[in-house]
């Protein structure tokens, strides 16, 4: 625990946190990194495979072969989520299965399944972006500023 956090606590609380810390098992970082690398990498390899297949047999150009690839990955992720397998994969793989396309699809699908009991509009519709929403908000905001910087840099050149 960082010292800055400890300072806000009372002396008794500080003492307790040090006692408790000894009994808290740590996340296995090296193992998690390795698993994340393998799973994340594997998902990307599968994506690359689908893309190559789309170019070779699907009649797609290199530029737009990404579109069906993303769609297929999303379908696979949603399918695994609905079958109750993606959360188990996530527990094993950690950050590896949170890689953009499949992880994003899982966050939306899981929220949609979860809130189906509250109806289609106020349940599924309103809650689908519960987890993914902040990605979109900050992604759009970041893109806006990057766009302005690019505009300034290329204005007279």
């Amino acid at each position, binding site marked *: 625990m960082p010292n800055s956090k400890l300072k*806000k*606590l*009372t002396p*008794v*609380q*500080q003492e*307790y*946190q040090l*006692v*408790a810390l*000894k*009994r*808290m*098992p*740590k*996340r296995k970082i090296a193992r*998690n990194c390795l698993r994340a690398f393998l799973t994340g990498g594997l998902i990307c390899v599968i994506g690359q495979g689908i893309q190559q297949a789309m170019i070779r047999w699907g009649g797609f150009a290199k530029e737009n072969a990404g579109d069906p690839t993303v769609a297929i990955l999303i379908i696979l992720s949603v399918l695994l*989520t*609905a079958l*109750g397998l*993606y*959360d188990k*994969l*996530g*527990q094993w*793989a*950690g*950050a590896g*299965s*949170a890689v953009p396309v499949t*992880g994003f699809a*899982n*966050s939306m*699908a*899981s*929220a949609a*399944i*979860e*809130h189906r*009991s509250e109806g289609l509009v106020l349940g599924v519709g309103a809650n689908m972006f*519960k*987890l993914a929403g902040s990605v979109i908000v900050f992604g759009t905001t970041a893109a806006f500023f990057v766009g302005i910087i690019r505009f300034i840099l290329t204005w007279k050149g």
Partner: protein
Amino acid sequence: MLKGYQSWVFREKPVIVSTAAVVGPFEGRGPLGNDFDIVHGDSRIGQDSWEKAERTLLEEAASIAIERAGLTQEQVQFYIGGDLMNQITSSSYAARTLTIPYLGVFGACSTSMESLALASYLVSTGGAKFALAGTCSHNSTAERQFRYPTEYGSQKPPTAQYTVTGAGAAVVSLSGSGPRVAAATIGRVVDMGIKDPFNMGAAMAPAAVDTITAHFRDLQVGPDHYDLIVTGDLAKVGHAIASDLLDKHNIPMHKTRFKDCGMMIYDYENQMVQAGGSGCGCSAAVTYGHLIRKVRSGELRRVLVVATGSLHSPVSLQQSESIPCIAHAVAIEASPEPEKED
């Protein structure tokens, strides 16, 4: 009645006339599977939402307990219960079905012993002839309310706990035979500054220790007074911390057995539950299913159940508040006259 600062010692000891425990499939596969009255094969319990499933568990546990006591709903004066849901809906909706005058209480996972202590108090003072105490929790409702959607693929840290799908209920009265409630200690809220909802054991351990030491101080007994002392749902991490703290306070816990319901209900080897079980249903199902059986059979004479609860809400945590915790202890004794196993 009042003994010391925060304990009740019952002069006429309320009898736990009957109990019932109903659990989901995952709990049924655990080491205590045979001690539960109903083990459902489907965690939805045939309902169309998790919330309804949770409520059904409680309704079933309550009606089995009432039936087993040889009573009808009309003969039970009060039902005291609560659960983890917002506005304790599971208990209130179950009370709608039961049509028993109802007092809703909230102590998070400590509700099991909070309600039993209050029900015992009611019957001991003549406030009720028969009182029902019950609580429930469901893994999927708790996950979604307190954490993420159940199917969301995030990795849980090793300190995380798995909410028990289960319910437990008990009928308490001054007449009849069965295990008795000898004493109860009402806990204080203790907050040691833990903010991680995936580390509730560490948050709740000091509350359990506070209540255990208060119980010994008020009753002027030591751990050796009990055959078994169980905490509600501290799980591996919290239980280890609680043991350390009790050691630090020079409480000779080695003179008794010190266990945790959250560690007893699951099989760590084969069930992926991280640190262990949690939830109202954890201490309720283990106490009313497993422990009461052992007290009835005479295997245990005196048991102290210390149910622990963390009193945070998802909003309070998002506003970076720490987790306030509480623990309530109830001492259960075997009936003085030997009884037949039912």
